[in-house]
């Protein structure tokens, strides 16, 4: 973070060198991982499937499952070891032909409904799903009430003779 910026020519040399090394290491890693993803899958690790459908299912699921350690991340983005394990499990199950529901059920059985970024509609989530609409209705009612009150004020007809007389007196400062 606090490094002094390098002179331009050095910087170029450095990036070229590390870039090359990175690619080499990356290629090696990918090769190793594709051979047998026995360990947790690192973030951004490309995965390969036999069919396009499997690939799509994997990509969809890793974005829908929550990393339960780092609670505001999906397992797709999270660096936590647990997320790596979960990605690997999603990968393995998908490659084995498990369906989307089977994989989600597997995770829910172990980690609870909390792993789902899209919670199902059930008894304890009714409020979660309906509260935006309830708030909308409540807001609508308040709005109606305000409009009605304004109308009442606006419709308050002409002043009566007494009222006009009283107003006159006020004006004259009596």
């Amino acid at each position, binding site marked *: 973070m606090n490094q002094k910026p390098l002179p331009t020519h050095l910087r170029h040399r450095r990036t070229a060198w590390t870039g090359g090394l990175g690619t080499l290491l990356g290629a090696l890693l990918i090769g190793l991982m594709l051979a047998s993803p026995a360990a947790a899958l690192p973030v951004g690790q490309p995965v390969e499937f036999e069919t396009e459908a499997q690939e799509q299912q994997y990509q969809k699921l890793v974005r829908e499952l929550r990393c339960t350690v780092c609670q505001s991340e999906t397992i797709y983005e999270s660096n936590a070891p*647990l997320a790596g394990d979960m990605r690997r499990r999603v990968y393995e199950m998908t490659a084995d032909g498990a369906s989307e529901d089977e994989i989600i059920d597997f995770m829910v059985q172990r980690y609870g409904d909390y792993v789902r970024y899209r919670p199902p509609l059930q008894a304890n989530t009714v409020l979660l799903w309906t509260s935006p609409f309830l708030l909308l209705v409540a807001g609508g009612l308040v709005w109606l009430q305000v409009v009605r009150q304004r109308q009442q004020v606006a419709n308050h007809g002409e002043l009566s003779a007494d009222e006009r007389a009283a107003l006159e007196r006020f004006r004259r400062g009596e």
Partner: protein
Amino acid sequence: MLKRIFIPLTGALMVLGLLYVGLGLDSRSLPSPLVGKPAPAFELESLEDPERMITEADFIGEVALVNVWASWCSSCRSEKPYLMALARQGVTIHAFNYRDTREDATHYLAADMNPYDTIAFDPQGDAGMEWGVYATPETYVLDAEGIIRYKHIGPLDAQLVREEILPVLEKLEAEQS
């Protein structure tokens, strides 16, 4: 006039109430879907002896604790005295050594004392996933039939042992006899 004050006031109080409750909740304490279910199956090498395989059957038979720990986990260190005290009281404690190396784990146990009866070595977190492990340390209570009856995520402390772990253990022992 009264309505003018009353409505915003109730609104504000409701929001304050929600915030009070919501901010007081511990987002880490998630209900475990495994409580009430049988101990999940696994097969792992023993930490001490790679030749020996340990399965869930080794954990079942009496009321016992199952503790998930690792040598790299500092809060595991902090709860170890409580596990030692429980072991001294005669509580059986099984364990998963989670995402660790044999060398580090053995050092960790040798440097101090070892409260565990059976330790399954889980370097890849395979059994960890079956058991729904989030993060070390975690402690489960199994009854004699191998049903998970209680789970705590995070380190044990004196209060927790006194107010939760021991009562659960006593209740299960009483159920058994």
